[in-house]
């Protein structure tokens, strides 16, 4: 899922300073799962903002909504009837969702309440860790299902570098397991060490961020 983290309350309060009537929009998608921008977070953030502004003597009126998804046009439509009555939308979806709100409602001020951080997994309750950097040309079949782009701190394709500690940690941070150490261990246990002996060809980043915003066009699905 796409991970995000709420911006510090004081930063959000700063963005909201010019306004006194806003929509706070959450998303039932990824950010609900990572507990950053779902209905519950909308409720908590709205209460916090209202209390802060009341204490300042400048109450803030908030309409609380949580949309099915903010990255699909049809789910944004329900906001249209009332949006005019508000001065701004504070969205706590991921950056894609926030931008789509701005794109669909061109005359509305849209503010980010969330910092979008990475694509990751729930390792255990309350702990999320990055797994994929959307390079656009997956090599997991060669690396035992462990991503060298996202899990090697240097995104090496023929690792490890010389910095792995004796207990298999990354020299960048002892908290991080060495991605290449994991790849080798895993290939060994799968009896696929011959994959490691092959040099991986130089990575082409053409499918990654090179060349501007990426797109997928599916003729079979278009109307």
């Amino acid at each position: 899922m796409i991970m995000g983290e709420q911006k510090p309350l004081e930063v959000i309060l700063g963005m909201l300073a010019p306004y006194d009537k806003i929509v706070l929009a959450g998303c039932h998608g990824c950010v609900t799962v990572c507990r950053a921008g779902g209905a519950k977070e909308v409720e908590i953030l709205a209460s916090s903002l209202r209390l802060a502004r009341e204490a300042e003597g400048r109450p803030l009126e908030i309409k609380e909504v949580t949309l099915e998804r903010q990255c699909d046009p049809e789910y944004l439509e329900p906001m249209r009837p009332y949006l005019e009555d508000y001065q701004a939308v504070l969205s706590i979806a991921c950056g894609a969702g926030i931008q789509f709100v701005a794109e669909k409602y061109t005359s509305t001020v849209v503010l980010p309440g969330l910092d979008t951080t990475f694509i990751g997994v729930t390792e255990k309750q309350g702990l999320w860790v990055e797994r994929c950097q959307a390079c656009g040309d997956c090599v997991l079949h060669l690396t035992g299902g462990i991503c060298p782009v996202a899990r090697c701190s240097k995104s090496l394709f023929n690792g490890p570098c010389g910095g792995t500690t004796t207990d298999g940690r990354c020299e960048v941070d002892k908290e991080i397991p060495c991605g290449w150490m994991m790849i080798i261990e895993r290939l060994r246990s799968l009896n696929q060490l011959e994959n490691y002996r092959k040099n991986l060809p130089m990575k082409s980043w053409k499918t990654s961020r090179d060349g501007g915003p990426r797109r997928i066009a599916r003729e079979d699905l278009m109307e």
Partner: protein
Amino acid sequence: MILKAFEKGADGVMVVGCLEGDCHYLSGNLRARARVGRVADVLDTIGMGGERVAMYNLSAGEGNKFALFATEMVDKIRSLGPSPVNVARKSRKQAPAQEEK
């Protein structure tokens, strides 16, 4: 929920859970404590004061201890005085909390 209580005009909120290690839901009371901590952080950030919320742990048979904790909490909140929100509301002489959904 705790924040809602403050919105409704509470000057302090006392959260009471079962004894640590004794939770019917294993770790519900430990998580509750962590969440009370988060609410305290929010209250600190917005200038209400994190001391206005506190978590206590009790078993069902400890009525007098409950009374003791409650008195302690009430004394603490009395000494802190009304919450900044209530002060602001009073000075604007308009009471109702916003409760839009």
